[in-house]
């Protein structure tokens, strides 16, 4: 059997979902028999080098770079999986939704209680920095997503069950105990 090609990325997330992927422990040896990793922070491949079977997205979209990468994944992956609370519901970053960008930036760089030395009142605005979006968008609000695996982070067993089913082209079984939103 040809090895399935997998790619992963972290958008507006904390890398907890990637850590949870590593929490499948010794099953990672079984996984590596079945799959080959392409673009991913795990192997640090920056660009897709071949068509990908399964793309795994952690985190939602809080800036223009996140949207760009998400669309890049959609174009290059046959199946796209939203992994974790931030990708599915916006998670912690989305707690800023409902507050204007101006208010957020002012709080972060000018008025926040932890801001100590910003005498020139500069809000970072270099042209190389991605543009902050008006709010945090979940992945399925930006592109079509095929599967959703909730959790913060998703349980390692959930990731393993789902991934194994996708790789072996079997139906996904998601037991009650492993599908949690926290």
């Amino acid at each position, binding site marked *: 059997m040809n090895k399935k090609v997998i790619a992963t990325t972290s958008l507006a997330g904390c890398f907890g979902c990637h850590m949870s992927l590593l929490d499948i422990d010794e099953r990672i040896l079984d996984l590596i028999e079945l799959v080959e990793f392409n673009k991913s922070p795990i192997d640090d491949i920056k660009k897709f080098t071949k068509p990908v079977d399964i793309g795994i997205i952690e985190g939602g979209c809080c800036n223009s770079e996140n949207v760009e990468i998400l669309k890049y994944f959609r174009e290059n992956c046959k199946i796209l999986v939203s992994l974790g609370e931030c990708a599915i519901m916006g998670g912690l970053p989305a707690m800023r939704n*409902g507050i204007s960008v101006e208010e957020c930036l002012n709080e972060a760089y000018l008025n926040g209680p932890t801001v100590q030395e910003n005498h020139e009142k500069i809000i970072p605005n270099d042209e190389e920095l991605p543009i902050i979006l008006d709010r945090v968008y979940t992945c399925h*609000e930006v592109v079509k997503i095929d599967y959703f*695996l909730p959790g*913060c982070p998703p349980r390692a067993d959930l990731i393993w069950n789902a991934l194994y089913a996708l790789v072996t082209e079997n139906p996904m079984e998601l037991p009650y*105990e492993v599908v949690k*939103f926290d």
Partner: protein
Amino acid sequence: MENTENKIKITLDGKTIYARKGSTIVEAARENGIYIPTLCHFEGADPKACCRICTVKINNRFMTSCTTPVSEGMEIENNTEEINDLRKSIVELLFVSGNHFCPTCEKSGNCELQALAYRFKMLVPRFPFSFPRKEVDASNPKIVKEQNRCILCKRCIKTIRDEEGRHYFAYKNRGQHLEVVLDPVLGADMPDELAKKAMENCPTGSILYKGKGFEQPIGTRKYDNQPIGSEIENQS
């Protein structure tokens, strides 16, 4: 043999059961080990029928089972694909119309809204998120009122009163601006037990008792291992 005196016969999902005269469909089902989900309805308070999660189909009509009394020969559909999908959509609508960030919520694992989402296998809400801006009121010494998680079920208003029957919680504004507020004067001297009860009676994490958070470890919380309603379905 079951004593059927003073009881009437109804059919629930094709199964014949006996119900007390005057009981509602929810009560009759529970007494027979059948779970019908409820959110706004709370034992000991008059049913309000506002959340519609207990919707069943009687003679091909959708009706709320918390307010409909049983009647002889009634045929009720409860656990069907159509009704469960309707209930799932209600849960999804509640998720997208508030700001329910489960990982940051103390009530996670013990939350009835979340538990219903687990029961109906919600992986993602199918409706667009509205991310409304709602305020948190932490001015009370005992309670945090987190309006972002409120589903306006009225359970706190109905069940949390002082000895003279005065309400601690009340509705404020109307329509989409409707919210639940805690009376600042009465709430200032709220007894501990009542503040804890308010948190307990709230189906979500909208009312939190101050001073102790995340008490139970993940894995041991109320709905971690058993779906909501199992306690009714598993009773012998």
